């Protein structure tokens, strides 16, 4: 029975399956449109953000982790001092998601009834920074210091022998907060996944206040007023960042192969993964005439695809579904938003292309370090 559950979870954790499931379930949990909202209510998923739903989810996560902790293989991963932050991350991400969503749902219900939101204090209920806020901050600071001290004494940092450049540990894992980046590096060239994407993430987050002109739900929790924005943000944060960190921690083993969490990390596991560039698919496998010698001619299909990917959807959407957005934001801000959104979606698209048809690079010009 227990072994059956473990084997089932191992199969589920295959990235092709788990990532697909998450992408399909996600819009029903965080509904971006009214159609999803209808199903969200019908399926009872809104109960997730009640106290009871939160407790059930808490119990569910704990049961899975306990199951893992007493498992021979998963226990080794979970028990590592390195991975304690990931367990804290799983709980804290879920807790803060639950906290903000349940506060937002409460406010949405109040507003639907025509009442004021919870955060709306009257003029008489003024709260002072000193001492009210500063005291809370000081207590939080002291508690956090105590927690960090106990943690660092109780679980010493895993120091290893002096670094040896001719011997990379197997698997060689980045610090936990960079595991999402390391996962991106599997699918993209270093200059894209290591330089351009992190820059885009930071610049994109900084641009949010300038491209978001919705005055609703500012200063209080609310979901109904800005469901699409919350959906897009949480999709990027939860599935493309937090989930990839979890994948990197629990599902990546020796030789950077995928392993189920309950599977043994065997160095001998063989996964055939012969990757092929798009140019090879086109010139060698479809046209059967061999690769042209000039790199630009060779990669012409990939270049056209990338240009179309970033060029076509903004134009089509501006005339169709997103016409209102263009009018509200203006051409420049609209272009920025859609460029950031398309760049974000490029990651899952590339991941699926790698998993399904072993596509290596859409544009591959190793001669001048340019691969997409």
């Amino acid at each position: 029975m227990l072994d059956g559950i473990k084997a089932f979870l191992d199969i589920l954790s295959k990235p092709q399956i788990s990532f697909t499931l998450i992408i399909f379930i996600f819009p029903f949990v965080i509904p971006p449109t009214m159609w999803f909202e209808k199903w969200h209510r019908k399926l009872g998923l809104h109960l997730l953000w009640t106290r009871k739903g939160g407790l059930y989810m808490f119990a569910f996560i704990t049961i899975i982790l306990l199951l893992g902790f007493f498992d021979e293989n998963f226990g080794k991963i979970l028990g590592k001092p390195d991975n304690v932050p990931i367990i804290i991350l799983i709980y804290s991400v879920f807790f803060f998601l639950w906290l903000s969503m349940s506060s937002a749902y409460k406010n949405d219900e109040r507003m639907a009834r025509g009442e004021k939101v919870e955060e709306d204090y009257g003029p008489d209920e003024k709260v002072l920074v000193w001492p009210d806020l500063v005291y809370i901050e000081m207590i939080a600071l002291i508690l956090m210091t105590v927690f960090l001290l106990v943690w660092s004494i109780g679980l010493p940092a895993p120091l290893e022998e002096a670094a040896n450049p001719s011997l990379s540990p197997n698997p060689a894992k980045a610090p936990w907060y960079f595991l999402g980046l390391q996962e991106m590096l599997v699918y993209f060239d270093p200059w894209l996944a290591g330089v351009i994407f992190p820059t885009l993430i930071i610049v994109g987050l900084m641009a949010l206040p300038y491209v978001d002109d919705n005055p609703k739900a500012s200063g209080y929790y609310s979901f109904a007023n800005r469901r699409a924005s919350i959906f897009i943000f949480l999709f990027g944060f939860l599935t493309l960042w937090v989930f990839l960190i979890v994948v990197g921690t629990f599902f990546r083993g020796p030789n950077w192969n995928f392993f189920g969490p309950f599977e043994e990390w065997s160095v001998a596991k063989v996964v055939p993964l012969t990757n092929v560039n798009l140019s090879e698919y086109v010139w060698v496998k479809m046209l059967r005439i061999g690769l042209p010698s000039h790199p630009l001619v060779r990669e012409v299909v990939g270049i056209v695809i990338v240009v179309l990917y970033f060029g076509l959807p903004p134009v089509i959407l501006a005339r169709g579904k997103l016409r209102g957005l263009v009018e509200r934001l203006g051409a420049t801000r609209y272009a920025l938003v859609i460029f950031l959104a398309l760049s974000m979606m490029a990651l899952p698209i590339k991941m699926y292309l790698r998993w399904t048809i072993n596509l290596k690079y859409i544009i591959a010009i190793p001669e001048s370090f340019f691969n997409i």
Partner: protein
Amino acid sequence: MKRRKFITWLSVGWLAFAGATGGFFTMIIRFLFPNVLFEPPQSFKVGFPSDFQLNQVDERFKQSQAVWLVRTAEGMYALSTVCTHLGCTPNWLITDNKFKCPCHGSGFRKSGINFEGPAPRPLERYRIVLAEDGQVLVDKSVKFQYEKGQWDSPEAFLTT
């Protein structure tokens, strides 16, 4: 103080400041380059061709020189042990007959050609020639890159 004198002193002051800062940064940059490098010589002898087993990847010089030596029926070549993706050191998996990088899963065939994972180009080869005494000489100061067509160079492959 006269206006002209003030400007003279001001210029002298600024020049002195610029000189001092310039000297300071020159010294800092100089400090980045060590006086002595405790590195093994870039070119070294690895023994006679017959010391190497046929169709085996020789890992004896991986630790000290970061080089794999492979001997085939036609000859020998020296592969760099630096992954072309982000510079980790791959492992030679004898059962799978491939080099596999533990950092992002790049895989290379015995020839050094990349075939799986994100590595954009094959492993680099080093200059390999026969010395006068008949030993194999590897020179790491000269690299040969496949994607630039340099593997065809006579010094990238030692015909025995």
